[in-house]
């Protein structure tokens, strides 16, 4: 890589507003950000750079503070309308409350144990060897190759690492770059609720028209008739996640086949978020890109963080055929330009890990899952089956609280355990009011302690 990729763009084009057809819901006034959820800031936030301990970790990055300067006469809020979807997240609020009450945090989706030494050592060596400058924008060649090799092993598909892969700052950025690179204002995109909270926000950033299909308990299976009724020639893309956060559902071959035939028939793209693909327990993970006729219309998204317990390294990627990867690559180059260099070298080593690593990983997580699931069942939750990810979703209604947020607050204050209310993962929050999400990406002792507290203090009504 010789020149920063930003230099490579010819300036001879003109962008005019006629490219954009704002959909009718755009208005030209600006709205203030909703700061109605107010929690005072715990003093720990000033010294938040401490090592992680399960009850004190901060997941989120947005201190939950009151914004002071609502509006002054000469300086009205000047923020874009798209920000209605971008509020302080539930994770921050729950985390703050958790710390206040010394609660065990089974809400945050990241481990309280660290990644493997063989991966960390490569990053350390890379830093020592001076690999601290800009990497090639779309990825260090060695990492692109490792991604291609791993993808081939997992799906049988052969992709060109130089032309069909873009490395990004985590899968979150891969999603953002895919949406911004391939979606125009007004394009219709189908999502399945509940969904990871960046989907809705990023789609609204791109001005997409969101069509939501809800996956329902007990098995969160694909409502195929509803999908058939909602997919049309006007649908630009389907954004899906398997294994699925928060439910742990994994799309079956049959379901994927149904999605595939609708996409082929109507010329629809698929953006498939597969970050938990290695945390598949009850069935094998299938990438929709591997189905006949699908590679050419699929962007497959993944990352290092979950598989290797290094969520803070921010190494993700998108794999797609050249005619789609171009858009992703361009958007990426203007979002972050390049991804952290030493971590990319380490990620390449990680992806070349032997099968035994993945087997150990699954075995480990299966044991943790059992502790949590058995515990939750014995306490009296209605636990829905989770085939993959490190999450389980449960029905909390046996405990008599009116909704998921109230239940989670009660759980923190009275029981000393954190779960996440799922309403934040739905377009219509009321659809999540009976469900809360627990994670088991914690060491076994932490899980046992949490279960112990719930057994002791959580009473069915």
């Amino acid at each position, binding site marked *: *890589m*010789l*020149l*920063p990729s*930003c*230099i*490579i763009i*010819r*300036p001879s*084009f003109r*962008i*005019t*507003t006629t*490219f954009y057809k704002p959909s009718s819901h*755009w208005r*030209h006034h600006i709205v203030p*950000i909703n700061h109605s959820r107010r929690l005072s800031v715990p003093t720990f936030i*000033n010294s*938040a*750079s401490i090592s*992680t301990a399960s009850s004190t*970790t901060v997941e*989120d*990055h947005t*201190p939950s503070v009151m*914004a002071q*300067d609502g509006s*002054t006469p000469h*300086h009205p809020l000047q*923020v*874009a309308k798209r*920000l209605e979807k*971008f509020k302080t*997240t539930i994770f921050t609020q729950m985390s703050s409350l958790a710390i206040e009450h010394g609660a065990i945090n089974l809400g945050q989706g990241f481990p*309280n144990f*660290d990644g493997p030494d063989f991966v*960390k050592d490569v990053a350390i060596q890379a*830093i*020592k060897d001076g690999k*601290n*400058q800009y990497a090639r924008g779309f990825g260090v060649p060695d990492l692109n190759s490792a991604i291609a090799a791993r993808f081939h092993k997992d799906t049988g598909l052969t992709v060109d690492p130089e032309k069909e892969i873009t490395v*990004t*700052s*985590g899968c*979150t*950025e891969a999603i953002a770059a895919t949406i911004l690179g*391939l979606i125009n204002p007004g394009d219709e995109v189908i999502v399945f609720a509940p969904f990871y909270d*960046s989907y809705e*926000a990023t789609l609204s950033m791109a001005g997409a028209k969101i069509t939501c299909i809800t996956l329902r308990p007990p098995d969160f299976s694909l409502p195929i008739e509803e999908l058939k009724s909602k997919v049309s020639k006007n649908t630009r893309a389907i954004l899906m996640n398997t294994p699925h956060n928060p439910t742990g559902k994994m799309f079956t071959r049959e379901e994927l086949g149904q999605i595939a035939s609708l996409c082929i028939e109507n010329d629809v793209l698929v953006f498939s978020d597969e970050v938990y693909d290695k945390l598949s327990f009850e069935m094998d993970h299938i990438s929709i890109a591997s189905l006949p006729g699908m590679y050419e219309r699929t962007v497959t998204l993944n990352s290092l963080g979950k598989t290797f*317990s290094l969520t*803070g*390294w921010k190494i993700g990627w998108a794999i797609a055929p050249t*005619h789609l990867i*171009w*858009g992703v690559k361009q958007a990426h180059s*203007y979002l*972050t*330009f*390049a991804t*952290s260099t030493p971590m990319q070298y380490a990620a390449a080593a990680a992806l070349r890990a032997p099968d035994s690593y993945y087997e150990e990983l699954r075995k480990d997580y299966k044991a943790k899952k059992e502790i949590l699931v058995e515990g939750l069942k014995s306490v009296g939750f209605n636990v829905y089956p989770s085939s993959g990810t490190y999450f389980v979703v449960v029905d909390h209604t046996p405990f008599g609280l009116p909704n998921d947020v109230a239940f989670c607050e009660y759980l923190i204050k009275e029981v000393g355990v954190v779960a996440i209310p799922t309403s934040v993962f739905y377009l219509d929050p009321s659809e999540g009011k009976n469900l809360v999400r627990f994670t088991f990406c914690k060491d076994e002792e932490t899980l046992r302690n949490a279960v112990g507290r719930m057994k002791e203090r959580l009473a069915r009504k």
Partner: protein
Amino acid sequence: MEKKLSSIAKSLKPSPIQQLSLLAQRGNAVNLAEGFPDFPAPPHIKAAALSAITSDFNQYRHVQGICSLLVDKMKQMHGLDVDPLTDIAICCGQTEAFAATMFAIINPGDEVILFEPSFETYGTCISMAGGIPVYVALDPPYWTLDEVKLLDAFTAKTKALVLNSPHNPTGKVFNMGELEIIAEYCRTKDCIAITDEVYEHIIYDNEPHISLASLPGMQNRTIITSSLSKTYSVTGWRVGWAIGPSCIASAIRNIHTKVTDSAPAPFQEAALTALRSPPEYYISLRAEYESKRDFVFKLLCQVGFQVEFKPLGSFFIFAALPETCKLTDVEFVEELIKEAGVVAVPGCGFFHTKHDYHNRYIRFAFCKDDATLTSAARKMQQLVDASGRLRFL
């Protein structure tokens, strides 16, 4: 399938400059094109990163300590009072800070004023957010601000203005007079300013770096973006920030959370060490870059370029091809690679409107090891004619 691309993606094309990169790579040329160092990052900062990785700072985190240190810097350097809890967003590099800022403040159709020549990313980022970049040309040879041109650029749709100082590619540092003009227009036209101050510590001849935000009436309408990259020679670590009025900083943080979620954790940790570097670090950074600047300036003048001034900041020299040279900038760089084995960047990539000079400039980077610079000098000096000028200039 091409129709599946977004409008923005479709409008972007790769450039002949990419061909030059390949040419340079094949010939193993001395690279004075890339805007990043080929010398190692400071040991104390690398050590901090290594320590962070081994101490398991590897999960998602937001290192609030960075904000406290930035608050001190803003006070020390610019006399600004910044609230560490509400006014700062830590991002994946200045690139993301800028992108998130654009998404935070630009509605489709909003105009954003930029000074050219300008770093390419700004304009495209603005367009990606639905805005319209409007370019105001700085006047060669000293790249001075023309107040009339600036005034003309404002319309009812102008939402914001971008200021990069010290400036890439020219090495210009906007002086107080120019900043006052810009500030006056921002105030009277109620315009938001976004600054890119990544070269804030790479400044020479005792020239002060003045942040636009420190001028009267500007702090509550300016977002400062910067990063670790250039100051600490770690362009590959991706830790940057945006500092601004709390409602905008909050919006930027929220967008950042949805775009990348967080900056790399171990490098945020190392940022604490970097930002605590002693004054000697910055003094010696400036002194080293200054001597590299002087070396390259002298070299370029010797071999026949027209370099009207020594840059006061950044690590670039924007040298003009003399009248006698019949080549365009792209053609010249091609010759430079083939004949001398040295790479530089044709200036046309920094211009967005046609001027009679837009293909007369070459950008040389001097953020390179002395050995690299000496090697470049030797190679170029081998190709001079009797008058001491490069044969093809």
